[in-house]
């Protein structure tokens, strides 16, 4: 056995995998930092082909869509819905219509909705839960405007967010969706603090980087603004997808529409505070990405849709990297437990590992710098920066592995809501 282990550890295949493990995060982090810098520069310039709208685009959007519809799908959201509805009713737009879909709630969500007396509020009640995508699709059909802002029932959008997002629709006629910049409302636990770092270093920086390439991975469901006419044309949200927002974004890209990231449109949101609820959320995200790749990867390759290639390559290799990391570390742990010579990926960082932590910290500080223009608090989390790559990467890789494998074998069926520790988040 010892000889076999020695042969495996010296084989070229294992060596290549180790190089892949060590280099991929470094390369992708460098690309993300540099691309997000391009996005940042685009927004400083005057008239480039960037996606920065100006005041005149907002004025034009307000004339074109004097009424905006806000959709809030909710299931068992008694703890957060009141604050969300109060916030969306304060959003700045000439005229608002707010549609709340109470999707089979069995707590006091209905009473919370009825406690708000406002003529702009329209309530759709489902006796039996139909899922978020189906609820939103129904509300889109009932909306009186093509300019629609969709907010999760635990989000607290900034009152200028619609101004920031809607201007993009007037800037380019092929924009179908705009997503905002989520900020964490509360940080009660260590898990939530690590997620706050993730939202700046990975999610918003990566989204900026992707935007610079012309394709973002997802128009985040926490707060997205859509043109309903375009979304109807591509077939609405798919109720069979675990992450209907990611899949819709890819479908919009593939049909020639643009999806935009607008970091100045901020919204407060809540995140899982415990490890178990975080696992549930991330398993859904992982499964959603896998299902989206399964749905769209081959058609993109077959039809040679080049603009989607960077997104496809980055998504696919990231998933593969997570699998390799967990497999190689598992191999190392097994060899260690059996007292065999070291093989695979050691838990103890090597030189490339220290470099990767270094570039991850650079990315975290860069993300904090970018988001810090409108969110002064994010920089105060700097002491936790090394813990993000040292702990959080492993947890994320593990959850990607356990979520992607089963999702490839699952049959497509309507997706239900998922319970978490702070209520129901979908």
């Amino acid at each position, binding site marked *: 056995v010892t000889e076999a282990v020695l042969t495996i550890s010296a084989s070229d295949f294992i060596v290549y995998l180790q190089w892949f493990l060590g280099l991929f995060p470094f390369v992708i982090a460098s690309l993300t930092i540099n691309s997000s810098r391009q996005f940042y520069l685009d927004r*400083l310039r005057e008239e*480039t082909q960037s996606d920065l709208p100006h005041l005149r685009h*907002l004025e034009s959007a307000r004339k074109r869509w004097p009424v905006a519809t806000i959709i809030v799908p909710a299931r068992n959201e008694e703890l957060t819905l009141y604050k969300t509805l109060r916030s969306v009713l304060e959003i700045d737009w000439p005229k608002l219509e707010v549609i709340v879909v109470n999707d089979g709630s069995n707590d006091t969500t209905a009473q919370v909705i009825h406690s708000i007396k406002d003529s702009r509020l329209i309530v759709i009640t489902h006796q039996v839960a139909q899922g978020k995508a189906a609820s939103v699709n129904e509300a889109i059909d009932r909306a009186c405007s093509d300019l629609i802002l969709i907010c999760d029932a635990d989000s607290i959008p900034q009152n*200028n967010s619609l101004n920031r997002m809607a201007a993009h629709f007037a800037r380019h006629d092929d924009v179908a969706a705009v997503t905002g910049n989520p900020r964490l409302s509360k940080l009660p636990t260590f898990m939530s*603090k690590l997620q*706050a770092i993730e939202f700046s270093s990975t999610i918003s920086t990566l989204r900026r980087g992707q935007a610079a390439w012309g394709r973002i991975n997802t128009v985040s469901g926490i707060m997205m603004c859509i043109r309903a006419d375009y979304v109807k044309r591509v077939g609405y949200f798919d109720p069979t997808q675990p992450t209907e927002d990611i899949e819709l974004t890819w479908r919009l890209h593939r049909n020639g529409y643009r999806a935009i990231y607008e970091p100045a449109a901020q919204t*407060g949101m809540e995140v899982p505070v415990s490890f178990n609820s975080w696992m549930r959320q991330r398993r859904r995200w992982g499964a959603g990405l896998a299902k989206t790749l399964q749905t769209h990867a081959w058609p993109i390759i077959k039809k040679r849709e*080049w603009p989607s290639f960077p997104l496809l390559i980055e998504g696919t290799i990231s998933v593969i990297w997570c699998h390799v990391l967990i497999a190689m570390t598992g191999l190392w742990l097994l060899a260690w437990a059996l007292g065999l010579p070291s093989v695979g990926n050691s838990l103890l960082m090597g030189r490339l590992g220290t470099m990767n932590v270094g570039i991850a910290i650079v990315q975290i500080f860069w993300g904090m710098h970018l988001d810090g223009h409108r969110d002064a608090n994010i920089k105060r989390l700097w002491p936790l920066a090394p813990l993000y790559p040292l702990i959080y990467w492993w947890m994320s890789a593990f959850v990607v592995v356990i979520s992607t494998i089963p999702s490839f074998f699952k049959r497509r069926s309507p997706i239900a809501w998922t319970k978490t520790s702070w209520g129901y988040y979908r």
Partner: protein
Amino acid sequence: MSEDAQGKASFGREIRSALPGTHEHSHFSEPENPNMTVHEIATGFRSGEPLLRKRDYFFGILSWVVWVSWGIYLWWFSDTVLFEYIFGVLVWLVVFIFSVVGVPLVRRTSRNRMQK
């Protein structure tokens, strides 16, 4: 100027203006309603307590110390092959060149294909 020449000029401008100290700033107003008061949203704005507790600082600072000292040990006090330093510098160099030239180039190609 032909469309091709215009494209080349704006591509060159994109590369030049990405260099430090050469950024061009927009003079257009941001899409903001001047008659409104913006409600600030920031990380932890509903927390009602300090973002970090003492134990967060403790574990955070400890992680900095562990990473820095382990990195110094690996790169300075243990046997290092010269190739690894050269390799590290080369990777940084390729990434830097790609960020200055490659990213605008691929972006332009991508846009052209999208327009077609």
